[in-house]
């Protein structure tokens, strides 16, 4: 009866909005979604708002398609997670049908319903969303101070205030500043002696040293949430992951152009000239933490993709797109649609694994990888073929019923057969292992093992799964389908991926990302490089260039640098050279009461900023000064000795940490194991980055537990002994010479009379080891010049 009634209704004329639909909406919906209140930012009495949808980013109504319309889904309320109205009785079948017919008729609103058509979003005019145009270099009064265009931009703004930039720092100080900055190590004595004041030559020499890559790769590793384990319960070592770290060091040392550097990480497997290096680069996608026993496996897939989207959008684009996963971004012109369009770019990626164990994959040129894959297939085929033959033959000692059970596909086995399989699995495995075919397999495996392997996700098909907007970010709640695309606010044209053995989506995206059409990537990396040199960026929110991000004091300088960078082949080393040769970089750190009061943040760059060395640079410098630094490059993780008490917080204190002997462990800290559940305590105390997600800057704290580790801890005290032994052997027994030598090694300067007096007095009652410990804890040792 009811269905016949609805059937009849379906053929009736479309409902009249004012007479039928508005009263229904007014009665049940508009109190929360009307003119006075717009819960979830949804307003149902205006067509534009209905088509735009609320904060979920999904249109409330798809005109002409009631079945696909979110409004219908909510008022039908078949899924308890999505029910409207939240209070009072549900809509009646007749009311629901009325809405459906109205939607199927195109959801007509009367002409006057949208009294105020939506104005264009003013956020579109935000500076960072406009194309990069190189501005003219400004004129200045004091032309003699201008060594590079950077100086002209900086000086022009200072002069406008009637200010002067700080005088230059002393050459020896600048040498130490550059050493820390470029290599993360202090200048050695011979390097100090050989220095004749030519800073440009010094910069070129340092940029050519492999220590540059070891220092600057760590900046990048912070951004891409690099760690060696997956976190959570097992916190297992990721196989071969360190090769990604080494790839970054090499790429920087080779001055791989940044656009290519980015493309290889996002789509190294999709490049026509893909090879071992470009495959290792795509390890980028797989660096994040992941739970091998997820609370909700269905959500987990999207959590892992979220890690990639959040990292990519922040690290490369300076956009906080991760906030748009469940609803349109609250502050930025970023839509849920943008989020899922980007998800579509990465949706083909899979994590090679067997149950909870992650697997690595062969690396090399296409032909080599293809051959390795063929060998793996061959092994599987041989095994499967022999197994079949064995079970059908008569040589097996298994009872016939058991063999029959094994031959039956898993999902078709009877209860009894399942038991037989379970009981006889071990016997069968042993029989198969002894089979002659295993000899052949072993030979193939030997050959296969010749192929090096790497840690990255793989895309196995040219056709990735269809991507939908997920309503409120819930895995099961499919909204409209989306195509792969970059965020609409910065990408006018759709992506045009060319499918091959993969979808080609990531390559298309990466090419757009590093093209001049994209206003963000060059600006973002240039700003980061500035920050890594100066401690602060021109934009002080380096991973957020959105409307909520910092408004730069020097947008012209940023744009000039971004354009210059692209014109110069995206070369990081050229950019470093430009910055290092500027007078802006070479200013003293001295403060100035007047300027400090007016510009405490130094946003006008009237001086070189003060900053403590990061954990790695401080540890590396300690080893360099003590003479123990092992300069071996690259390789698997290094496990330094840590306090045994630190293991007590772990769930497997006996097993998880097997430290190397001191010589093997005295490598640069970039090679230290980064174990997510147990950080090297000294690194952690010195504000090592958060590895759970992309990290744009290190914090800088000075708290008592840090001082305890630096003053009392094993690492510094061992190095103090080595340092003392070195001083004795190099400077002899004369205390005055020892003091001078210690100072020169650690601080690259002579001690003054007051300092010398204090230390000599100290040495009369204490050992040289004690003095060495004090020197390694000095503020001046931990701070750049």
């Amino acid at each position, binding site marked *: 009866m009811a269905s016949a009634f609805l059937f009849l209704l379906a053929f009736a004329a479309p409902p009249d909005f004012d007479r039928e639909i508005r009263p229904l909406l007014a009665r049940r919906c508009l109190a929360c979604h009307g003119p006075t209140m717009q819960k979830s930012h949804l307003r149902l009495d205006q067509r534009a708002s209905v088509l735009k949808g609320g904060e979920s980013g999904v249109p409330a109504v798809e005109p002409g398609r009631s079945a696909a319309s979110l409004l219908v889904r909510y008022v039908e309320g078949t899924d308890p997670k999505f029910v409207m109205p939240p209070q009072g009785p549900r809509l009646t079948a007749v009311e629901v049908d009325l809405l459906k017919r109205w939607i199927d008729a195109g959801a007509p609103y009367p002409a006057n319903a949208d009294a105020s058509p939506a104005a264009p979003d003013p956020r579109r005019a935000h500076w960072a969303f406009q194309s990069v145009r190189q501005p003219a270099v400004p004129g200045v009064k004091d032309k003699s101070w201008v060594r590079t265009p950077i100086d002209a931009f900086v000086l022009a703004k200072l002069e406008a205030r009637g200010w002067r930039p700080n005088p230059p720092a002393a050459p020896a100080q600048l040498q130490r500043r550059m050493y820390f900055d470029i290599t993360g190590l202090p200048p050695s004595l011979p390097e100090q002696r050989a220095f004749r004041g030519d800073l440009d030559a010094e910069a070129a020499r340092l940029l050519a040293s492999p220590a540059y890559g070891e220092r600057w790769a760590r900046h990048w590793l912070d951004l891409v949430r690099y760690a060696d384990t997956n976190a*959570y*319960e097992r916190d297992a070592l990721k196989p071969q992951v360190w090769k990604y770290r080494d790839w970054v060091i090499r790429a920087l040392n080779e001055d791989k152009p940044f656009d290519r550097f980015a493309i290889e990480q996002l789509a190294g497997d999709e490049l026509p000239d893909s090879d071992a290096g470009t495959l290792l680069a795509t390890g980028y996608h797989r660096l994040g*933490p992941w*739970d091998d*026993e*997820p*609370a*909700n496996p269905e959500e987990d897939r999207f959590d892992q993709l979220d890690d990639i989207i959040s990292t990519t959008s922040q690290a490369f684009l300076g956009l906080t797109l*991760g*906030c748009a996963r469940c609803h349109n971004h609250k*502050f930025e012109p970023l839509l849920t649609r943008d989020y899922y369009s980007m998800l579509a770019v990465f949706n083909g990626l899979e994590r090679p694994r067997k149950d909870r164990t992650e697997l690595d994959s062969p690396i090399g040129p296409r032909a080599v990888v293809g051959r390795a894959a063929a060998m793996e297939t061959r092994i599987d085929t041989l095994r499967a073929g022999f197994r079949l033959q064995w079970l059908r033959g008569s040589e097996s000692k298994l009872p016939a019923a058991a063999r029959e059970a094994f031959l039956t596909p898993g999902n078709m086995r009877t209860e009894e057969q399942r038991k037989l399989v379970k009981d006889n699995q071990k016997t069968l495995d042993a029989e198969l292992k002894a089979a002659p075919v295993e000899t052949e397999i072993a030979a193939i495996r030997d050959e296969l093992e010749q192929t090096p392997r790497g840690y990255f996700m793989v895309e196995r098909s040219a056709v990735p799964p269809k991507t939908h907007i997920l309503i409120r970010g819930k895995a099961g709640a499919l909204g409209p389908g989306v195509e792969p695309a970059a965020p609409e606010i910065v990408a006018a044209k759709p992506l045009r991926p060319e499918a091959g053995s993969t979808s080609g989506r990531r390559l298309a995206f990466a090419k757009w990302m590093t093209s001049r059409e994209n206003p963000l990537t060059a600006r973002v990396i240039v700003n980061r490089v500035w920050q890594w040199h100066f401690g602060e960026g021109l934009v*002080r*929110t380096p*991973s*957020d260039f*959105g409307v909520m991000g*910092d408004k730069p004091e020097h947008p012209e300088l940023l744009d000039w640098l971004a354009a210059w960078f692209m014109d110069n082949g995206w070369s990081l080393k050229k950019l470093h050279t430009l910055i290092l040769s500027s007078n802006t970089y070479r200013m003293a750190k001295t403060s100035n009461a007047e300027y*400090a009061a007016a510009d*405490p*943040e*130094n946003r006008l760059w009237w001086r070189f900023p003060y900053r403590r060395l990061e954990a790695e640079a401080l540890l590396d410098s300690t080893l360099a000064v003590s003479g123990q630094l092992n300069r071996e490059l690259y390789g698997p993780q290094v496990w330094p000795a840590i306090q045994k*008490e*630190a293991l*007590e*917080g*772990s*769930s*497997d*204190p006996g097993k998880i940490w097997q430290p190397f002997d001191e010589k093997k462990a005295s490598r640069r800290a970039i090679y230290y194991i980064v174990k*997510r559940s*147990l950080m090297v*305590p000294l690194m952690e*105390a010195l504000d090592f980055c*958060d590895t*759970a*997600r992309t990290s744009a800057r290190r914090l*800088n*704290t*000075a*708290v*008592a*537990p840090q*001082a*305890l580790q630096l*003053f*009392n*801890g094993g690492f510094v*005290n061992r190095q103090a002994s080595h340092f003392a032994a070195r001083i004795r052997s190099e400077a002899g027994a004369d205390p005055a010479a020892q003091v001078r030598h210690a100072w020169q090694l650690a601080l690259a300067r002579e001690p003054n009379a007051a*300092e010398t007096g*204090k230390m000599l007095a*100290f040495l009369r*009652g*204490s050992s040289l080891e*004690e*003095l060495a410990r*004090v020197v390694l*804890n*000095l*503020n001046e040792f*931990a701070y750049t010049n």
Partner: protein
Amino acid sequence: MNSPTPTKRSRRDFVWQTGGGFAGLALMDLEARAGSLLAARKPHFPAKAKRAVFLFMNGGPSQIDTFDYKPELTQRNGQTYKGPLAVGSNNRPVGYLMQSPFEFRRRGQSGLWVSDLFPHTSKFADDLCVIRSMYTDTAAHASGCLQMNTGSIFIGKPSMGAWTTYGLGTDNESLPAFVVMTDPRGGPIGSASNWTAGFMPAAYQGTLFRSGGAPLLDLKAPVDDATQRRSLGLLKELNEQHLIDHKDESELAARIQSYELAYRMQTEALGIVDLDRETPETRARYGIDAKLTADFGRKCLITRRLLEKGVRFVQLYSGGGHIEDTWDGHEDCITNHRLHAGETDKPIAALIEDLKAGGLWDETVLLWGGEFGRTPTSEGIGKPGRDHDWHGFSMWLAGAGVKGGQAIGATDDLGFAAVEDRVHVSDLHATLLHLLGLDHTKLTWFHQGLNQRLTGVRGEVVRKVLA
């Protein structure tokens, strides 16, 4: 309190925030702590509780064997469960409904139901506020511990102790503001991610404190005290000399100060764990001289001493490592819970007793529980194990600002799922912060484009808890 947004803060504020010292002040006032990262701060609104203790029963204690009395389960003992809920975790086998072997009694004036697992703590039944309707979002230990400690199943979010320390600072900078003591059998799964400061400065993270020997990492100087003092003296003199040319660098001054604090911490922290001077009567009450209760007894007594010294947040772990070394009674929940309850019951009661006697009870809030509960069914057939139950479990609060002698909410007749006055983990977090005078919607830290909170986008204060 709001963290300064990066866009709006001055460099000076940034130093103030991260320098751990006293921005803008030079050496004249080395003792000044105004502006320190850890300086004591006023709560959002007046509150009785000034500090908190989280007694974390790692592994997931069973609600139906502790505080959630289920006569219906006894009636249906041995039957098959046919309800709609997903039972258990990780495809473990599901057995029959299994009654609790522990006798439940009404305790105190209030008549609160408590099982015989807790003969000592139940003497304070009139002080306990049991929430019987807790639920969480995950059935796995790793994500469960993370959610209970940080509000999120993902790693990297600051823990409750870190948020509290950020919100209130500390009254004693010679000790860590947030102390964590783990079980000698091992830490919880996820280790330090359970007491991390996440994206906030490391100064707010929990500091592992050992209950014997040197309680902090590198607390013991490698040299005698005279040499240590002399060396620190030289370090200070040379640093002060250096500071003359860098008067405006508050970071440098803060770093000088941190060495002095570290030295004071050496004495203070060693004193805390020296329990020899406690009377035999006290040691006996905490069970320090009995093997079963020695470790947790020491930890509870040290907790009392830490609270007396102004430490803001203490978290104690009962159970560590894996499976039966924790409350994770998959094989034999009965023996398991007898052991772990036996280890902790007497020490916890002694702590409550001492806090009451010493006047700290009115300023301290206690929280007891684990990452989830356990199933009313046995795990597999013929063995008395119980699997994880995240649909419903019990926790209790007591102390300052808490209305004791009551049970809030209820699970279904068998004890599977919270059905009445359901309390999500984030609601519990909102409530605990509220008891400490902090509004969970206002205690935020700007990070990655958002004002982050302990409670994310959830959390309602459970009003019934409040006295």
